[in-house]
C-alpha cells in the first residue's frame, strides 16, 4: 500500500463539448509525496525526499498548463485546471518526480 505509485487518472468531459467551451479537467496520481522532512519513527532518520516536481499538460500537442511542486503538496496529489476546448484532440498529462520517474495519461477532448 505504502509503495503504491503511479496509476495516473484524468477525468474530463465524457461527451462532446462546444467549440470554445471551458472544460474542467481533474487528475489524480498515486505518489508518496515525501517532502524529505519527515522522520522515520523507528530509526529517527529522515525519510528521503520523493515527490512529483512537475506536471505538464499538453492539449493537441501544445503545453497549456504546467505545475511545479514542492514536497508539501499532499500525498496522492489531486490537480484540477481548465482548458478551452478549441479542437478535438488529446489531452496529455505528464508527472515527473525528483527521482526521475515519469508517468503519463491521456484523455480526448471532443469538440462537436
Amino acid at each position: 500500500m505504502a509503495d503504491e505509485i503511479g496509476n495516473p487518472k484524468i477525468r474530463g468531459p465524457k461527451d462532446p463539448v462546444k467549440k470554445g467551451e471551458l472544460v474542467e479537467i481533474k487528475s489524480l496520481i498515486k505518489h508518496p509525496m515525501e517532502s524529505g522532512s519527515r522522520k522515520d519513527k523507528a530509526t529517527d532518520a529522515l525519510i528521503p525526499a520523493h515527490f512529483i516536481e512537475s506536471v505538464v499538460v499538453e492539449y493537441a500537442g501544445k503545453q497549456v498548463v504546467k505545475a511545479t511542486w514542492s514536497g508539501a503538496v499532499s500525498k496522492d496529489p489531486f490537480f484540477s485546471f481548465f482548458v478551452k476546448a478549441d479542437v478535438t484532440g488529446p489531452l496529455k498529462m505528464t508527472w515527473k518526480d525528483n527521482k526521475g520517474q515519469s508517468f503519463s495519461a491521456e484523455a480526448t477532448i471532443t469538440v462537436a
Partner: protein
Amino acid sequence: MDQTNVTRRGFFRTAGVLGAAVAGSSLLGVSVLAHADDAAPAVNIDELVAKQVGAGPIAMEKVGLDIPGTAENAALVRMPIVVDHPMEAGNFIQTVTLIIDNNPNPLIAQFELTPEAGKASLEFRARMAKSSKVRVIAKSNSGKLYGVVKEIQVAAGGCSG
C-alpha cells in the same frame, strides 16, 4: 508565529529590502525546493516573493482562495485558486504562485498558464506544518501582480509525523 510578523509586514509593499539572501536561480529554484525542512534560518518571505514573481506592488484583488479559516486535516488542505482575469492572447495570467509562510519550505507550488487554459482556475491540496498565512500571487503576461492572503489555523501539523 508572532515573532516573524515584523519581517513579513512589508510583503505586499515593495519587497526584498534586507535580510539573508535567497540563494539559487531566478526560477522556482531546486535549491529552495530541496531544503524541505532545513534547520537553516527561515526563508525571508518578502525575498522569496520578489524572487518568484518580481518586486513590484501586488494589488490585493482578483485572486480568490475560498477555503475555511480552520483546516480540519493539515495533511490535506484544499487550495482552490480562482483568478478573475481574462485569458486571451496578449492579456492573460501567466503564473500563479502559492506560498505557505510557516512551512519549512514556504514555496509550495507554481503554475504556468497560457491563454489556451481559458480560465485561471486550479485546485490542488497541500500539507501545512502549522497555522500560517497562505499567499497566492498571480502574475499577468504584462507583469501585473495580484494577490490574496489567508490566515489558516491548523490543529496539528501535516508535515512531520
